[in-house]
């Protein structure tokens, strides 16, 4: 059994599609309450790793020691169009208690009083907040986020980052956030991982580190040599 403050431990994970090995002996531990961001070039296997952790895809080797039911927020909100918001949030636990929890969760993401409203009446950011409420209402030990803000505009994205930071501080799940945005990772995470060659190639703690310097290092890790914005 894993230690009580560990959200998930991955050891020597392997995953391939046909002949192509996408994840090759990957090790990773996320503690409860720890916010981990995962960066990496497009196609390097970030989604593959996250889906393996979510139990959505089988693995070809290694070990995942974590909760059987981590919560997932996908890039799209995946709300059920035929269910009012509270039923979307409480999906699978639509009891009186479930409803009360769903209402509380909706309030936490700034959508108090919209329990009976329909997904079609929401903006993109609001819908993504409902998806977040749906994940958090389950009080997960591990929260998996695959580019949940990618489709949002810059302003909404900043607000969402602050919101998610606050909610994670309160509920203390272990978090794995896949993102393309180095600034987002630096702003939001406790630890930043860079994935390359099917494993974790680098790991940086953000605490007490100069953000600009860290940003430069990460961009170099990702193979971006000249940083136009720093120039």
């Amino acid at each position, binding site marked *: 059994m894993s230690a009580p403050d560990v959200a998930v431990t991955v050891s020597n994970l392997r995953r391939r599609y046909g002949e192509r090995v996408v994840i090759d002996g990957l090790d990773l531990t996320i503690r409860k309450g720890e916010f981990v961001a995962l960066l990496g070039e497009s196609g390097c296997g970030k989604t593959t790793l996250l889906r393996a952790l979510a139990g*959505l895809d089988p693995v070809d080797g290694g070990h995942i020691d974590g909760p059987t039911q981590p919560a997932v927020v*996908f890039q799209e909100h995946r709300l059920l169009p035929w269910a009012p918001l509270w039923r979307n949030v409480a999906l699978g636990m639509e009891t009186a208690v479930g409803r009360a929890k769903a209402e509380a969760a909706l309030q936490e993401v700034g959508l108090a009083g919209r329990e*009976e409203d329909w997904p079609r009446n929401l903006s993109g950011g609001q819908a993504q907040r409902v998806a977040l409420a749906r994940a958090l209402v389950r009080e997960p030990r591990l929260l998996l986020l695959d580019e949940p803000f990618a489709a949002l505009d810059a302003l909404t994205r900043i607000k969402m980052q602050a919101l998610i930071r606050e909610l994670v501080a309160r509920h203390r799940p272990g978090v794995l956030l896949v993102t393309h945005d180095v600034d987002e990772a630096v702003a939001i995470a406790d630890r930043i991982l860079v994935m390359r060659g099917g494993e974790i190639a680098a790991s940086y703690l953000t605490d007490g580190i100069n953000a600009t310097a860290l940003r430069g290092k990460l961009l170099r890790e990702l193979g971006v040599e000249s940083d136009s914005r720093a120039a």
Partner: protein
Amino acid sequence: MTMDLTDRRLLREPADPAPRRVANRELQLLALSWLAPVGILLIWEAASRAGLITAQVLPAPSSVARTAWNLISSGELPKHLGASLLRAVAGFAIGGTIGFILGVLVGFSRVAEALLDRSIQMIRAIPSLALLPLVIVWFGVDESGKIFLVSLAVLFPIYINTVLSIRQVDPKLLELARVTGLSRLETVRRIILPGAMPSILTGVRYSLATAWLAPVIAETIATTRGIGFLAMDAREFLQTNVIILTILIYAAIGVGPTVLPGIWNAVCWPGIQITRKGAANECA
């Protein structure tokens, strides 16, 4: 399905900037959709009165209306109409239920598909007319044979639409079911059936029309009741008025089912309408 009407009205209002204007436009479009049928009736009447059409070939609408009135007051028309409607309703209920159950089985289980689908498709290929002699041998000439034929005709559209709608449920939502830990039963109830509903309703609408038209053939089996019989009988005696009347009745009632699922959809599944526009439009 889950809310009462007042709740829904509360929710719709803020989302809809000018409900009255929208309602007016809907009304105008509704009026427009009746323009052609009513216009044709008027032209037809005028042409008959002007003597451009011989009454023997095509009697005037007013003359057909008089015939209708006579048949109604004598109790003839209600009797035939009632008999036909009863067959349609009974056949729809039986065929629809069986089609839906088979559709659910085959939709969910590849084993059931392997076991049942080929046979169902083969039975589907048999024209009702070819079955008719066998039906008479099996059921004689009473009601059950006619209801059997209607049920058979209704079964397939419901079956096919149910199977397809279950197979076409968004795989992303099925993934969601897995990560939220829904049981198999909850997945069906919360995700697959509501997602399949617009397409199933398309099948229902189509089958209702089929249920109403199928008795035409069924009623050629020795019978003395039904709109189909009325038409056959009128043909024997060259009563053009009655022939036209039965055609108009088929047309009028055939339109009915096309609005039913639309109403049902609006009342039962308010969330589906806009987000699943394509599918919902098919039913509306």
